[in-house]
């Protein structure tokens, strides 16, 4: 009897462990837009102008973006060529990639040519929603309405154009919101439309605020019938925050939060913390374009995600008594320096936005095929999407880490990058991880060969089972001149006299590889720049760093 009980207990424990680490692809299956068999032979391309002002070209851009979301509902048909200075710099290289690797032939229209685009794709719309040119938030509500009711978004000035194409006015928001607060406006939208919106996608149509809007991600939100707002996560706006809590609390766990917080209302730290509280996945770029198009296109049959691994699995390397440096560019694939001079010059690591494996496959294929032998990829940021681990309740971890493990495997990634600004940032507070959170990473990412932490510098360090967790010792600011940055590195080398010394450097967004190479070339100290997998492997065998986790006495700053 006792033996049976023991057997039962062991079986239950084993089942629980297996459950915790189950390869969870059902979440991705739920979230993933259906793929077409292959990319379309032909598609329409509309170039967009540089003007994104509310009183400028936003009306025609909003029309085209909403039309794009509808036209691309079941097939990728319409691609928008965003202007030269668009933050997501891959929008243009991706055109050539889609032509070359996927055989898409683009039929190019004129700049902002809504007339021809409507003529081609009017059949995908049931009418129009008219937004109020005097109330900015009415456009954000109109995006919600467009997705739910299959409507093109227009202003009053565009009514003749809509009529010409036989599109009736189905919803008219003019005058409806005069004098109302954003909390009241979005509450109205919630009451009218939320029940018919997706529980898997919510869009924060923030980022640029006031006189400008860059709703690049709206086409995908419309395609997915997402609810749109730019509600604030700032406690200074209690009515907006209450409604936002209600919305996030009603979404599936996990599900996707697209877009970015409003620069005018709250902070990145506040927004990301709140999203994490609900165990949701943030894909944080409000101007990420054309996902309604690219999300449906599969990888080419001859392609497989292959990383540049310098270290073979199970291989051990002995560190010499010297300074090792690894350079990592976070959030720089697409909005940083991939296309700028210098890439390939030195070993360099790039953090991959892992959800693009299913949400934006052509973009990831482009990066993987365009990499140089010196480019190495790692997963991030903190998991599948941008998230702060300290903000995520422990019971919401397994579902997220299952997705993270799955994506790391699909993308041939072995190292995971962690960042947590829920209690501080580069300026104040702390960016460290308590032991309980570190435990969870080690337990729930058993295949990861190592972890790195921070964004600015941080001081969490650990080593378990040959798998190091190292924090950034240096943050290369965009503003930092090379001579001062070189002096910074030399100072760190002075401050850390033992050898080997492992100096992990975070390279911020638009710093070019060329700048980093120049800075490293100026050092009076002898250093070796190595790929991150080599760096971590060496650090696994020579623990000159102290184990440190966040302490209860560490300063906390909740992102004012």
């Amino acid at each position, binding site marked *: 009897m006792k033996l049976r009980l023991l057997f039962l207990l062991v079986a239950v424990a084993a089942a629980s462990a297996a459950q915790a680490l189950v390869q969870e692809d059902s979440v991705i299956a739920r979230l993933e837009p259906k793929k077409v068999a292959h990319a379309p032979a032909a598609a329409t391309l509309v170039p967009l102008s540089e003007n994104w002002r509310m009183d400028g070209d936003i009306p025609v851009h909003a029309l085209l973006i909403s039309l794009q979301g509808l036209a691309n509902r079941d097939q990728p048909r319409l691609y928008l060529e965003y202007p030269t200075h668009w933050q997501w710099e891959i929008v243009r290289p991706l055109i050539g990639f889609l032509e070359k690797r996927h055989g898409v032939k683009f039929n190019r229209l004129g700049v902002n040519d809504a007339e021809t685009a409507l003529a081609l794709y009017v059949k995908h719309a049931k009418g129009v929603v008219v937004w109020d040119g005097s109330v900015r938030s009415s456009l954000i509500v109109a995006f919600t309405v467009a997705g739910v009711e299959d409507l093109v978004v227009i202003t009053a000035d565009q009514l003749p154009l809509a009529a010409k194409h036989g599109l009736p006015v189905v919803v008219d928001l003019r005058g409806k919101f005069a004098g109302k607060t954003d909390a009241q406006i979005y509450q109205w939208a919630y009451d009218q439309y939320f029940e018919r919106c997706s529980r898997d996608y919510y869009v924060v149509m923030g980022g640029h605020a006031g006189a400008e809007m860059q709703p690049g991600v709206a086409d995908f939100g419309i395609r997915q019938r997402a609810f749109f707002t730019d509600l604030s996560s700032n406690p200074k706006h209690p009515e907006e925050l209450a409604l936002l809590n209600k919305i996030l609390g009603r979404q599936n766990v996990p599900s996707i939060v697209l877009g970015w917080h409003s620069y005018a209302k709250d902070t990145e730290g506040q927004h990301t913390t709140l999203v994490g509280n609900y165990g949701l996945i943030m894909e944080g770029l409000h101007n990420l374009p054309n996902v309604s198009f690219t999300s449906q296109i599969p990888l080419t049959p001859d392609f497989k995600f292959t990383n540049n691994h310098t270290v073979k699995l199970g291989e051990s390397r002995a560190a010499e008594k010297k300074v090792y440096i690894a350079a990592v560019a976070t959030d720089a694939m697409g909005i940083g320096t991939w296309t700028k001079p210098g890439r390939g010059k030195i070993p360099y690591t790039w953090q991959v936005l892992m959800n693009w494996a299913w949400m934006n496959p052509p973009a990831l294929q482009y990066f993987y095929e365009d990499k140089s032998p010196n480019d190495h990829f790692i997963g991030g940021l903190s998991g599948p999407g941008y998230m702060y681990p300290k903000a995520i309740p422990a019971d919401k971890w397994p579902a997220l880490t299952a997705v993270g493990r799955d994506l790391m495997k699909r993308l041939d990634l072995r190292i995971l990058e962690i960042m947590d600004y829920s209690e501080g940032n580069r300026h104040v507070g702390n960016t460290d991880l308590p032991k309980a959170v570190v435990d969870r990473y080690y337990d729930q990412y058993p295949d990861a060969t190592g972890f790195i932490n921070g964004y600015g510098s941080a*001081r969490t360090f650990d080593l378990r089972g040959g798998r190091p967790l190292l*924090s950034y*010792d240096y943050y290369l600011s965009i503003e*930092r001149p090379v001579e001062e940055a070189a002096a*910074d590195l030399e*100072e*760190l080398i002075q*401050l*850390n006299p033992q050898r080997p010394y492992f100096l992990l450097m975070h390279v911020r967004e638009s710093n070019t590889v060329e700048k980093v190479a120049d800075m490293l070339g100026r050092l009076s100290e002898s250093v070796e720049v190595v790929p991150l997998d080599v760096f971590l492997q060496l650090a696994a065998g020579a623990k000159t760093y102290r184990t440190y986790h966040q302490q209860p006495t560490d300063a906390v700053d909740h992102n004012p």
Partner: protein
Amino acid sequence: MSRLLLLLLALGTAASLAATDLPAPASPLAGTWHIDAARSTELSPWRDYVFTLTVDGDRVTIARRFGSGRRQFADALTVDLSRPDNVVPVSLWPDNRHLGAYIGGDRTKRVRGEWLDAGRVLRLSTDLVLSTQQGERPVNILSDYKVSANGTRLTLTELRSTRNRPVVYSFTRAPAASK
């Protein structure tokens, strides 16, 4: 006017002068100073750096405020120049937040100071311990506050024992607050 009245007025004036302490000559460094970023070592992650220096006998107080948008950090340091050592608590080391170096040891700094060049220069020598990934490292910082001849500019030169390159900040005097 009688001679007696003139005598009384003169006595009264003398008495009132005697009753009021004549102000000591103000230190040319006293006041509020605002960084001139264009003439300074690059300051990131901070964008702003203001300090107020006050002198009260041998006691010099420097109240600093660093800012970057919504993020602010302020601290204050009072040094008694007559003492060989002033122990000052430190909550955060704001000098270079790009580095993986944090206040360590007993979270204090030991500061001694002196006036040089007839009060035109204040020199502080600070000893503190920074904590890094490899442990704790004592650091000395030599800080010279030098005011320009016309009193409108102040140059702060900091020599850290661990840094090969000096840090030089240039400040302009903030206008006195109106009364």
